[in-house]
């Protein structure tokens, strides 16, 4: 469970307020969508939750652990997938898993067992021992998914994980997210693709210029409007704020 409380982030002393007193809750076994245009503050919010950035004010509890007080403890509970797969060209997928497993303090045999399982499940066995520099973007994103899932973390943070992927790879990522929910994990998933949010998410927060302007299930957000299409709902919400 992720509980975000009045979380704010300002870059520089008088700089932009990238996240402005954001509050929301994402429960276990739930896919929580962060919907917003580019530059709305989705990535900054996720980076704050991943403790990569320090909040200017406010905090968040990840499974009860305060990320301001114990960032290291929070990172133990997280799996993170970003828009960029972020793989080392000269390491193989299997070596990636070993590296990140060791950073999480997993014992070697456990890493080997989990890796084999994930490589099979994500259909990566064929290229598991090939240098990542030779892999396609979709394959690389699978490495990122396996890396995030390796430690079986209770919380997954995913920042536009399907950006730049082809149809099949997008489907693999979406299936992965579905499995994470089934496994009882809390998934926070950001996207600017309305249909994807509508298809996958149990609940959604709409973020605009750093502020959460609406929060609820897709159905609830739609019910505030007479319009049928979620795109129209989003456009109206954002339009009201501008």
């Amino acid at each position: 469970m992720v509980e975000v409380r009045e979380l704010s982030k300002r870059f520089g002393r008088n700089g932009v307020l990238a996240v402005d007193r954001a509050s929301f809750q994402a429960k276990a076994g739930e896919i929580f969508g962060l919907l917003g245009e580019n530059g709305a503050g989705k990535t900054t919010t996720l980076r704050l939750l991943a403790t990569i950035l320090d909040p200017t004010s406010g905090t968040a509890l990840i499974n009860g652990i305060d990320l301001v007080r114990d960032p290291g403890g929070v990172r133990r509970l997280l799996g993170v997938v970003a828009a960029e797969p972020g793989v080392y060209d000269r390491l193989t997928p299997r070596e990636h898993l070993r590296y990140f497993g060791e950073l999480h303090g997993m014992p070697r045999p456990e890493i080997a067992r989990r890796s084999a399982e994930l490589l099979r499940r994500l259909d990566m066995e064929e290229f598991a021992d090939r240098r990542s520099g030779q892999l396609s973007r979709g394959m690389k994103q699978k490495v990122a998914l396996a890396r995030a899932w390796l430690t079986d973390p209770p919380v997954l943070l995913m920042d536009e994980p399907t950006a730049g992927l082809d149809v099949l790879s997008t489907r693999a990522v979406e299936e992965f997210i579905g499995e994470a929910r089934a496994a009882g994990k809390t998934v926070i998933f950001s996207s600017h693709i309305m249909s994807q949010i509508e298809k996958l998410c149990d609940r959604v927060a709409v973020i605009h210029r750093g502020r959460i302007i609406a929060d609820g299930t897709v159905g609830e957000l739609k019910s505030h409007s007479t319009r049928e299409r979620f795109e129209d709902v989003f456009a109206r919400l954002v339009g009201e704020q501008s």
Partner: protein
Amino acid sequence: MKGRRDFDWRHVGVVFRKELLDTTRDRRTWLAMIIMPLLLVPLLLLAMPTIMAQHLERVQETPVAVAVVGAEHYPDLVAFLDGRDGVNTVQLEDPVAGLAERAVHAILYLPEGMGAAVAGETPAQLRLAFDASDEFSTAARDRLAAALGEFAGRVVADRLAARGLDPAILNPFPWSLENLAPPQRMVGFALGMVMPMLLAIWASTGGMYAAIDGAAGEKERGTLEPLLSTPASRTAIVIGKYLAVVLTSVLASTVSLLGMVLTFLIRPAALLGPGADLQVRLAEILPAPAAGVILLVVLGLAGMFSALQLAISLYARSFREAQTYLSPLSFVVIFPAIFTQFLPVEHVPEWFFFVPVLGSLAVLKEVLVGIIDLEHIAMTLAVSAVGIRFALAFAVACFRKERVLFRT
């Protein structure tokens, strides 16, 4: 402080091993770390002198053409010059243009009435023109100067003989040269010129690619974010990376030392000079204590530069930008190295040992000449230790700064 509380040496080890694995798979590092340092010393000491000697031989074997102006004023001298190997005299209408076009290598002007002057035992002023920008012209100058000296000697000998005097009276004490420097000192002198510079350069740049890859490279590939969201603290990440860069740098220096040893094994004369006693053993050139001190000094240099390189390349947005920022850093070593290259060990001022880099260069020079001055070594290592402390703190601070990490 964020990160410090979560510091775990195991994370340092994990990051260190991964960086080494990554580095050993990078061709650029191999080139910068092993191949270049290994081959540069043999190239400098074996190939370069051979090529230069061959060139010099070619210059010496080529006959020079000398335009003689006023040859008719003293045909005896012209005949003498023509009789010498490697000198041909010619007559030209415009000798200056001939010299400019390199048709002749020198111009010799004989004054009017020279024959009478020589006969009358009054001085005759000659003029020799040459082109200092042309090696063959310089060779012609030297050859002519020697020939003129020899001819003048003959004239003097004739004059002395006419007076019934022995020419030996002109040379009251003939003397000879003898080099008493033991071969080890000779080697030290030669190595003291080149090796400190090379050792320092590799110590400070050998790990550059590893540093760029580990900081700017992580940013560019988007691997920094996943790495920062693992339980490893930022301090542990920096130190793991730092140790890998230091090891790479020290390895580069060690390999260049190995190149030197290799040169010695292939052709001892390259280090000892021709005609030296070739029975000198390696242990005399590089005794174990000297090798130990070299390693420590190199470690100090590598320790400072690796941290700076990591910090600077983390500030850069891309691999290429990091390269641009880091290139000037090598001048911090190259300038003092050139500056101290020709400075004799005995004349190194005491304050050198209080200055980072300068002190290291001076100690390397001392050690290679066979001097082990514990005070100098201790001072230099202490200065390096302080340098490392600050440089590493700077690198850690950079890894904690969002403005540096996410500079766009």
